[in-house]
């Protein structure tokens, strides 16, 4: 998959490459430009924190990076593949096999147990029932939810639901983990646990992470912070030497 064509000076091929990405919602006078020309390269193994005021286009950008949406103009390459050229089903397969997503509003299936929610991406990957259970239980253990597998989202606290969402995103061991405010509903102790979890996934399993957050404390855990403002990247700096 990783077979880049241009290596403009860097020794590594970016896993995510946005160039001049614009996203316009609506049309005519109601048109709303959520992204106004974003250039962003993310390399394998990075842990990027995305910050910025509400409405600055963070989630819009995450949707494009997550192959859920396509840019209005500009190019997005995922592992060197031009996502805009792919069909709906091809993008679905990209998401299935390479991406893990923690949505801003969890988006767990109602009336479905935590375990089954976590198994969902494995079902679409065609994993057998037995290893599905095993992997899902393992993921629950990682997020500290052992013993809660048979509870439905309605029976879990907001923080627990968020951890189910994280477990669902990491259970497939994705190439890239996209997390939209994964600690938004957690107290600081839980938040720290989650951040340590993400850090270890990043460091030990080499999963590339892009995380939206409003809290500078959380951004501290990342290796790089990107700031959005009015649909553009305003600042972008690395702050750890271990990347």
């Amino acid at each position: 998959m990783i077979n880049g064509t241009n290596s403009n000076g860097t020794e590594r091929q970016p896993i995510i490459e946005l160039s001049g990405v614009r996203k316009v919602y609506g049309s005519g006078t109601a048109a709303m430009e959520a992204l106004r020309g974003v250039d962003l390269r993310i390399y394998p193994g990075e842990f990027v924190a995305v910050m910025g005021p509400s409405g600055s286009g963070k989630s819009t950008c995450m949707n494009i990076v997550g192959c859920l949406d396509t840019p209005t103009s500009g190019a997005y390459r995922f592992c060197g593949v031009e996502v805009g050229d792919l069909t709906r089903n091809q993008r679905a397969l990209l998401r299935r096999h390479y991406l893990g997503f923690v949505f801003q509003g969890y988006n767990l299936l109602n009336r479905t147990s935590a375990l089954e929610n976590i198994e969902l991406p494995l079902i679409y990957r065609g994993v057998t029932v037995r290893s599905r259970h095993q992997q899902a239980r393992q993921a629950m253990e990682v997020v500290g939810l052992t013993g809660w597998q048979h509870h439905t989202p309605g029976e879990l606290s907001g923080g627990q639901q968020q951890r189910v969402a994280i477990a669902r995103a990491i259970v497939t061991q994705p190439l890239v983990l996209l997390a939209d405010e994964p600690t938004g509903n957690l107290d600081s102790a839980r938040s720290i646990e989650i951040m340590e979890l993400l850090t270890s996934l990043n460091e030990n399993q080499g999963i590339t992470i892009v995380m939206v957050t409003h809290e500078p404390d959380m951004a501290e855990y990342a290796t790089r912070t990107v700031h959005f403002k009015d649909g553009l990247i305003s600042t972008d700096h690395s702050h750890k030497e271990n990347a």
Partner: protein
Amino acid sequence: MLGNALLLALRELRRNVMRSFLTMLGIIIGVAAVIILVTLGGGATKQVTEQISSLGSNLMMVVPGKRMGPGQGSSSAPFKLADAEAIEREISGLRAVAPASSAMVTAVLGNENWSSTVTGTTASYFDVLNRRIQEGRIFSQSEARSGVSVCIIGETIRNKLFGGQDPIGNKIRLGNISCEVIGLLAEKGQNTMGQDQDDIVIMPLRTFQRRIAGNEDISLIQVSVKDGISTDKAKVDIGRLMRVRRHLSASEDDNFSVMDLKEISTMLSGTTKVLTGLLGAVAAVSLLVGGIGIMNIMLVSVTERTREIGTRLAIGALEREVLLQFLVEAVVLSCSGGLIGIVLALTVSLGLSSLLQIPFVFNAPIVVVGFVFSGAIGVVFGYFPARKAAQLDPIEALRHE
């Protein structure tokens, strides 16, 4: 994937038991109606066939005219007594031959009167039709030859005219003639077509022709074949003989017909079939309505579960996987309706057939057809909602509230 979709569908069904049941109702009623109608229709047909064969499976009827209904008037020339005698003389393998001619008359005794059918025939009639005498006797050879006014009456006539009294030896008035009752037929009840077989008066053919009809015509020759002799052969023989007697050239069609019981029962069950077909059409409409109900509830379900669909698509479900999930759900819904309909139909059919005193005939093909059809309705009416689900935009679906 299919097994998984099936599991999900069953769970969804269980979650909304009441709603699922109401949705299935159309299918349940449609499938049940079809199966009940066909089962009862089959039972009725079987009963008709059985009753006809109880007449004696070796009965044949020779009637003038080329048509299927027995005992109806025809434009072709009627038979004469000589025709019946020729059949008796020249065809081998026959047990008895009974020529008959009938007319409607009013039977009168004192102040009582009753309109009935009087049939002139020979003594063989009782043999051919398996009619027994309960009281008195049948007419003798000499009475038949001389054409005296004697008659044998059925139970219904006795009831109407004599009340509970013994009719033997009394005289009743039949149209213009006075006639002595010499015998009473054993009761037989209604036949398949609902005719009262005891509402009859039998008299010697000669008497009938001279005193009531005023002609020598024979409208029906009933023949019974000896046991072990095929009716097919007798039928062909009689046909050949009658063609000669009626002077038909090789190019002319028969102007009479020889019917055996097979044909008579086919004719009768034909009527049942038309009825079954008609009611089947009504049932089909009910299935259609059931299908629309399923489509409606599936569309509601897709809207309700937009976020779920969005989540599945975002996680990497392909369009066809979502399509399959919802299609399977619709099919499970309609097939469950079909199954419930089948169980209901069999229960109701069993009950009704014992109530109506017709045999219960289990018709496996129609049960299979009912089930397959309900499944097909699920596919047809579930497809549109399922496609709608599959084509949702994941982001829009996730934002849906």
